[in-house]
């Protein structure tokens, strides 16, 4: 039951946050460059570390700073970790959908006088979302399974309250070290992929519309 509850409130949150991230990352406004960099960094870090590690880090780490009830619940922060990691994965799915809509659609929309955001809302996104429904389902299925990871935190919380508080902070170092090792592999990997894709796009597709 707990699993279903976490799943039910995480899914809309993931979809909404992912869409915002994907739109921010696909934006072409030069003024939004810092936001774009931030989003790329966020997605790299969230995707580069296993979900379970984020659930441990955020699920135990945030309540560990001494918040009051009900904000000290590892279950709550575990779900937040789930939303943060999954939105990074799903944002990339949305972005692939946005990129798959041919440049000529944007040209047609802009030539009619529609603004950038109107073009995104009425022309690009409706086509993009239709195309990414299958891979989206894929991610929701694996989300359903990973929800179980959050519910694991419950029993561990009891152990913690039973007296392992003292060792808690010492135990974080290996988690952080593990996260850094994961990132040092996954970030160069994603950057290389992005670079290759961008080169391919420059070679094959029409010029980008302002």
């Amino acid at each position, binding site marked *: 039951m707990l699993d279903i509850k976490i799943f039910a409130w995480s899914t809309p949150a993931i979809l909404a946050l992912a869409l915002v991230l994907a739109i921010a990352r696909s934006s072409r406004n030069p003024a939004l460059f810092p936001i774009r960099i931030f989003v790329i960094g966020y997605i790299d870090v969230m995707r580069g570390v296993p979900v379970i590690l984020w659930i441990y880090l955020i699920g135990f780490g945030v309540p560990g700073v001494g918040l009051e009830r009900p904000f000290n619940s590892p279950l709550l922060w575990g779900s937040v970790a789930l939303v943060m990691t999954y939105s990074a994965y799903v944002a990339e799915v949305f972005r692939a959908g946005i990129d798959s809509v041919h440049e000529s659609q944007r*040209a047609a*929309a802009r030539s009619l006088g529609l603004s950038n955001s*109107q073009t995104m809302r009425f022309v690009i996104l409706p086509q993009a979302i239709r195309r990414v429904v299958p891979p989206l389902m894929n991610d929701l299925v694996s989300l359903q399974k990973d929800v179980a990871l959050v519910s694991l935190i419950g029993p561990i919380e009891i152990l913690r309250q039973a007296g392992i508080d003292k060792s808690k902070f010492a135990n974080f170092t290996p988690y952080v070290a593990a996260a850094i090792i994961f990132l040092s592999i996954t970030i160069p990997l994603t950057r290389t992929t992005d670079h290759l894709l961008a080169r391919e796009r420059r070679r094959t597709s029409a010029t980008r519309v302002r």
Partner: protein
Amino acid sequence: MKLEMRQVAKSFGSRTVLSGFDLDVAAGEVVSFIGASGSGKTTLLRCVNLLEPIDDGAIFLDGDEISRIGRDPNPIRRRIGIVFQSFNLFPHMSVRQNITLALMRVLEKSADEATGTAKNLLARFGLADKLDAYPDQLSGGQQQRVAIVRALAMNPELLLLDEITSALDPELVGEVLDVVRELKGSGITMLIATHEMMFAQEISDRVCFLDAGRIAEQGPPSQVFSQPRDERTKQFLRRVQALGKT
């Protein structure tokens, strides 16, 4: 609408497409651009409605410089319609939605008024029964006519036609050209990039032959097609004639 282009330059990477390009188009004039593939016809039209930023020079509409960096392109694009070679209809929208989207969102017309405009224009071009069809249910010729209607619905002062028959089966070309013939009667200013020499000869007030990013030769169609002076124009027309297209 009067259009002037002064010393316009545009290149993609190391490939120069337009260089030192000058053009003057009077209100109501119909000007065709002919020339080999890659001679800059499409780029020229895309520069005019600011889909491609120009590298140098200036473009004026009725004396107003529209190419200035940092200028909001949207109000300018409202006055300029463009029809693309590959139609570019929105596949997830019906014909009605394709036409009314910009009417409602850009010109802020009511749904009823926008649909009325769509119905009138569709009827004018023999598409009255296609109002609720989707683009993939239409033939290429019908799709292109809808694309023309979509551009016309915004009531543009200048219409750019970018090789609008190049992606069509030969038997569908006629119906699209008929639409353009009718438009000529309405007095709208048109710039036409085309490979249809017969059509260019018939419809244009002036024909420009593009070569290496400039106008190599221009004049009334009778002159450019019958007595070309420029050597490259002669060569081009000979090649086209050899293909039996003139």
